[in-house]
């Protein structure tokens, strides 16, 4: 038996799914958390249950809503559990009226029963069942009440008692059309639903449309002063209002905590400063405070562990090669990455808090106007913030954006946000080169990323993505106290995923790097590091990084390229390489005295961080971008754009930074550079405008992109 879980966004669907299956799917307090459908088995049964993305109606506006609708029609679930947010029953029942038109059994799960009383709402369950003509179960997904009853209802085969929803004429027309549909195909499913869609003239169902139906609909349309789309929606809501009057009793309770909080968080003057402070704190806490306190401790533990392993291996008589593989390869590589787990815990915790409290929806609202000016939507901010944990779910989250151009632009800009895997790079460089200012420097990178996103989006929306929209329609959820259990699980899952990656991908890469470093092309072991395979490979392409680092540094070159596998691999690779060039027993300091990286300066460190931040993301994120962009050609363009931009930004950063370091940067130089940039800007702007002038007289200017 197949069960589909259908409901509005933010109605507690995912919580119920976890509760029914015992799995831990992602839960958040912003519309659109379920980005792809999830499947599980209901506890104690063999029923398959699918958690579909939240929808408000069966007419889709965004990709994720399309997924939900497609599933219901193509996969033919046996039962639909329609989760209804009891605190917003009127809007929630709108979807229910549509689901009840399908030929599938529907069970209404009236969720959030636990907070109804607090809100002064009383719902007569039995009466509601009678009015809707289908089974209703009161549950609380969060408190896990009413769940067993819900499961037992799935088993029962109660048939639907259909109630008329529209006025007499429309109901009559519907049954006539149903008759026509059945006479042409006796096995047709969902005929009532189809009939309504045909009356609305929804072009997605054109293949069922006939002249006869069109004629009948046309005749009835004369009775109303607007189109059927509006009439049907209005009559559905009229029906719901009547049902509500009969079944729901409101005793308004004064609960304006959300309004009070919004007076602060959405205040005209302080909303932006608060947002900036919150985002700054996220980075400052994780990299600055936590980072500086744990980095030495963790590296000391790692040092003594690696010494202990080395000694143990020697004492049991392993050869020098194996000893080096374990100590210089595996432990140095994997250990370098694992050292950043404390910072990651804080970062993941902060993101989880932003998501579950409802502040995330406020950020979208706060920045919509700003983002709209640069061709993005306020909703783009959600992928960006999720992307500061990991780009992959961030990129997938772009599906909540309705407009195609805005969605693609967000997809290509999301990897610019420093993700948790880039955090080790940032923490390593800023911790060593900027010491007590490390928190400040890492936060500066975050804001630098935002600035670059804004500038890129502005330019892209003027040159490439011109069909951005002006529409913003989104529910504003109330603030909620975060559920500690779920937050702990969420952080735990993400940290475990990071550690697993260190134990698999990073481990294998470290072994490969160790091999390429230990052997020359003649497979001679223990050669001087300069003669190793890796050095030869790196030297042949290190000129690419010359303008960024001010030298031909093969070690940094090969490390940056490995960022494609996983960004934290950059750090891991640097640790392995430096371990080789160091005098034995001097500890695992990457930038220590005699390593290839000791020539790094603050300027080249900052430039190198910038390159790694903006260049092509890891393969995982590239794959996610391919899924969202849908074509290899687009993907290639995007990856090239990202990498080229990264190179340019890093070059500019180093060239300016190193001159500041040497004290050779003069005010006049800066003025000349600004003047040149200004001229380029004017030329570009003019050429864009010229194109527009030419288009005015063109007959195709409206339809042309």
């Amino acid at each position, binding site marked *: 038996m197949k069960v589909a879980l259908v409901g509005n966004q933010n109605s507690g669907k995912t919580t119920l799914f976890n509760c029914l299956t015992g799995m831990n799917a992602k839960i958040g307090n912003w519309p659109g958390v379920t980005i792809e459908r999830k499947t599980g088995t209901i506890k104690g049964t063999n029923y398959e249950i699918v958690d579909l993305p939240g929808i408000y109606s069966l007419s889709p506006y965004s990709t994720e809503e399309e997924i939900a609708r497609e599933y219901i029609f193509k996969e033919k679930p046996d039962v639909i559990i329609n989760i209804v947010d009891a605190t917003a029953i009127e809007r929630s029942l709108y979807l229910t009226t549509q689901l009840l038109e399908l030929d599938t059994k529907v069970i209404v799960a009236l969720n959030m029963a636990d907070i109804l009383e607090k809100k002064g709402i009383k719902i007569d369950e039995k009466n509601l069942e009678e009015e809707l003509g289908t089974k209703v179960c009161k549950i609380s997904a969060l408190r896990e009440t009413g769940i067993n009853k819900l499961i037992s209802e799935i088993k029962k085969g109660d048939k639907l008692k259909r109630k008329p929803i529209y006025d007499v004429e429309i109901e009559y027309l519907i049954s006539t059309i149903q008759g026509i549909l059945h006479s042409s195909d006796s096995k047709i499913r969902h005929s009532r639903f189809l009939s309504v869609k045909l009356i609305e003239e929804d072009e997605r169902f054109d293949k069922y449309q006939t002249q006869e139906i069109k004629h009948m609909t046309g005749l009835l349309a004369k009775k109303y002063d607007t189109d059927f789309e509006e009439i049907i929606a209005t009559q559905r809501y009229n029906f719901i209002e009547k049902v509500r009057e009969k079944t729901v009793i409101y005793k308004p309770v004064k609960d304006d905590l959300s309004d009070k909080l919004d007076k602060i968080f959405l205040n005209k003057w302080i909303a932006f400063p608060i947002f900036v402070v919150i985002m700054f704190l996220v980075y400052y806490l994780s990299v600055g405070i936590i980072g500086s306190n744990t980095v030495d401790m963790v590296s000391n533990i790692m040092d003594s562990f690696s010494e202990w392993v080395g000694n143990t291996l020697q004492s049991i008589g392993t050869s020098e090669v194996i000893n080096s593989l374990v100590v210089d390869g595996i432990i140095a590589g994997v250990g370098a990455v694992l050292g950043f787990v404390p910072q990651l815990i804080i970062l993941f915790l902060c993101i989880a808090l932003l998501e579950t409290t409802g502040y995330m929806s406020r950020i979208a609202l706060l920045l*919509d106007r700003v983002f709209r000016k640069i061709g993005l939507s306020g909703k783009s901010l959600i992928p960006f913030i999720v992307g500061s944990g990991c780009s992959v779910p961030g990129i997938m989250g772009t599906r909540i954006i309705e407009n195609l151009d805005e969605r693609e632009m967000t997809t290509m800009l999301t990897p610019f946000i420093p993700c948790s895997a880039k955090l080790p790079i940032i923490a390593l460089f800023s911790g060593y080169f900027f010491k007590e200012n490390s928190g400040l420097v890492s936060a500066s990178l975050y804001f630098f990323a935002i600035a670059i996103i804004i500038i890129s989006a502005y330019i892209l929306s003027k040159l490439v993505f011109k069909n951005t929209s002006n529409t913003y329609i989104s529910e504003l959820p109330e603030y909620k106290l975060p559920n500690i259990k779920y937050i702990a699980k969420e952080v735990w899952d993400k940290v475990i995923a990071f550690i697993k990656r260190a134990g698999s991908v990073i481990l294998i890469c470290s072994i490969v790097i160790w091999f390429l470093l230990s052997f020359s092309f003649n497979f001679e072991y223990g050669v001087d590091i300069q003669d190793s395979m890796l050095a030869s490979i790196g030297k042949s392409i290190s000129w690419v990084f010359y303008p960024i680092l001010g030298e031909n540094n093969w070690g940094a070159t090969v490390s940056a390229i490995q960022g494609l596998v996983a960004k934290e691999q950059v750090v891991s690779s640097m640790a392995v390489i430096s371990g080789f060039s160091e005098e034995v027993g001097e500890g695992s300091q990457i930038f220590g005295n005699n390593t290839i990286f000791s020539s790094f300066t603050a300027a080249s460190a900052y430039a190198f961080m910038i390159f790694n931040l903006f260049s092509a993301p890891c393969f995982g994120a590239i794959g996610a971008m391919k899924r969202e962009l849908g074509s290899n050609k687009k993907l290639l363009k995007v990856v090239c754009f990202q990498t080229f931009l990264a190179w340019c930004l890093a070059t500019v950063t180093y060239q300016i930074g190193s001159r500041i370091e040497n004290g050779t940067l003069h005010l006049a130089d800066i003025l000349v550079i600004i003047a040149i940039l200004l001229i380029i800007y004017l030329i570009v702007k003019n050429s864009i405008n010229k194109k527009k002038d030419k288009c005015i007289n063109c007959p195709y200017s409206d339809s042309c992109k």
Partner: protein
Amino acid sequence: MKLSKLKVGQEAKVIKLNIKEKETRRHLLDMGLTRGVVVKIKKIAPMGDPIDIELRGYELCIGKSDLSKIEVEVIK
């Protein structure tokens, strides 16, 4: 009166949706913005756009450009 012109705390009844883009119009209808529904302006985003309105027992944020195409009759 246009819905976008209302101040925070004002209530109004929806009279007509003058929205041409089919998808947007459909979306707003589905969210409950049908004729005769009573809406209340709850909050306005710091930059004056979008605007958060209360209707049918929940809150919905809508961009100003679309709100200006919704004809309403002020009640309070």
